[in-house]
């Protein structure tokens, strides 16, 4: 019998170019999450940390360093890496350990610091997250891999680069209201279409930025949450999926199988369907990724996502608001932290801290995050507790 798992507190740094060390960035988010939950570090029984490129700031094996600096060096921690999906995949492991009854309260923290390395080095480092022998090693960057998926999608379904641009415009509109967003700037379709090509057909504004940042949540069982007297959310669905690592090995390059599998598991666990979701934070590392995501998550039939975008159905006041935080595109993408940052957004939305980007009357939310081109994915569903 599974324990119910709750999100009791959440905290996040600003995403962007940060001067602090990776450890300081991590601790800043951790402190905010601990304060938000109304607990002390002594309540934390385990630490789950996600990070990909700590080596660039001379810190790997991060968990014991974080736990020591939180004043709990005797509390076990582990560090998980799954490229851009690290945050949600780590969150799933933290969730599973609470659900299994191993711990009553843990911290789930994602962190990244990468902007100090510069564009060429970052581009190269990220390419190591691909199936390098066939992809990065043959000159493909991450924008390039998604560029190839975009080309395949645009050739297969009735859609255009302008549809992709609309997604970027929407996410910047939302991110403008997020005080922690990396790029708080409204843009137009022309801004996107006229921006420099990064990897055709994707242009600069089709791509999320390289960001530093950290996000943390406190996860606990229901008994712990109720005793706290603080507002909390319940995690009612969790799913994990996997796809062939290389784009070349997928039967259909216009879909991400790991998303479909993870979503189906999460919906089944929650006893819900896509139409029950009030808003979603999805993985929009590139505009084409969001277009594929909203189909793979079941919000729109395959091939009809572009039409839904044109009709404004994924805007803040649309049928299914997607990325009210601004998404990876505007909020930013510190790759080890992003999946946890999505949970922080859900927590802020459900505890009346989202300000002008609040989704009205929302009670059920979904987060979706994947690694690389979708080789690994996790989907979680959350319920607002009244």
């Amino acid at each position, binding site marked *: 019998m599974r324990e119910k798992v709750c999100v009791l507190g959440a905290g996040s740094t600003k995403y962007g170019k940060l001067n602090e060390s990776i450890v300081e960035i991590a601790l800043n988010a951790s402190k905010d999450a601990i304060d938000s939950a109304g607990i002390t570090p002594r309540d934390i029984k385990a630490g789950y940390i996600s990070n990909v490129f700590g080596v660039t700031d001379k810190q790997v094996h991060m968990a014991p360093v974080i736990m020591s600096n939180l004043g709990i060096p005797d509390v076990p921690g582990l560090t998980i890496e799954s490229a851009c999906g690290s945050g949600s995949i780590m969150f799933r492991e933290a969730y599973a350990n609470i659900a299994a009854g191993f711990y009553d309260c843990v911290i789930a923290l994602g962190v990244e610091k990468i902007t100090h390395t510069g564009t060429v080095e970052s581009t190269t480092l990220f390419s190591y997250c691909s199936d390098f022998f066939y992809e990065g090693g*043959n000159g493909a*960057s991450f924008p390039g*891999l998604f560029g*190839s998926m975009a*080309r395949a999608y645009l050739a297969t379904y009735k859609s255009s680069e302008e549809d992709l641009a609309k997604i970027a415009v929407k996410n910047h509109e939302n991110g403008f209201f997020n005080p922690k967003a990396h790029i708080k700037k409204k843009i137009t379709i022309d801004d996107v279409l006229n921006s420099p090509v990064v*990897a055709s057909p994707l242009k600069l504004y089709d791509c999320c930025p390289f960001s530093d940042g950290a996000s943390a949540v406190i996860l606990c069982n229901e008994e712990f949450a109720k005793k706290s007297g603080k507002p909390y959310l319940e995690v009612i669905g969790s799913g994990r999926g996997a796809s062939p690592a290389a784009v070349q090995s997928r039967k259909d390059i216009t879909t991400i199988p790991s998303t479909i599998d993870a979503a189906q598991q999460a919906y089944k666990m929650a006893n819900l369907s896509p139409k029950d979701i009030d808003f979603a934070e999805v993985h929009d590392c590139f505009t084409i990724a969001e277009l594929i995501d909203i189909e793979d998550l079941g919000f729109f039939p395959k091939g009809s996502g572009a039409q839904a975008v044109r009709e404004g159905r994924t805007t803040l006041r649309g049928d299914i608001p997607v990325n009210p935080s601004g998404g990876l595109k505007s909020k930013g993408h510190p790759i080890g932290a992003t999946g946890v940052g999505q949970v922080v957004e859900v927590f802020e939305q459900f505890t009346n801290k989202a300000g002008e980007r609040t989704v009205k009357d929302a009670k059920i939310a979904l987060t979706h995050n994947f690694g690389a081109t979708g080789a690994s994915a996790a989907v979680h569903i959350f319920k607002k507790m009244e």
Partner: protein
Amino acid sequence: MSKVQTQKQSSREQFIDCAKTGKILVNQCKKCDNLILETVYFCDKCFNNSFKQVIFNGKGKVVTYTIQSVVPEGFEDVASYAWVVFKMDECGLNVSGFLPGISSPADLPLGTPIKVIDFHDKHGLVLKKDENSL
């Protein structure tokens, strides 16, 4: 005189040697005949762990691609190139590689015939348009 031990080539090294002659090395499961491109230890259809190697002609048709403008380290010396996924004519498997000399989508319609010509230390699996098949 000490005994010189020759190390058996890894499957990846064998793949590279084949690519230098314009061929693609593929693994075929001895139990179910499944063809798998990557270095494999277990067949993803029947989980058998015994394979034979089959060499195919490195010719195929473009499935999708991107033209890289912001390039990773090691590719700064190339004026313009595409990273290409192509489907091999002889066996239907997809492979990806590096195709220099592509600077606009007009240069490379989907379905263009291409072929493997080399494996380069810095640029990986090198492709070229197959002019004879155009």
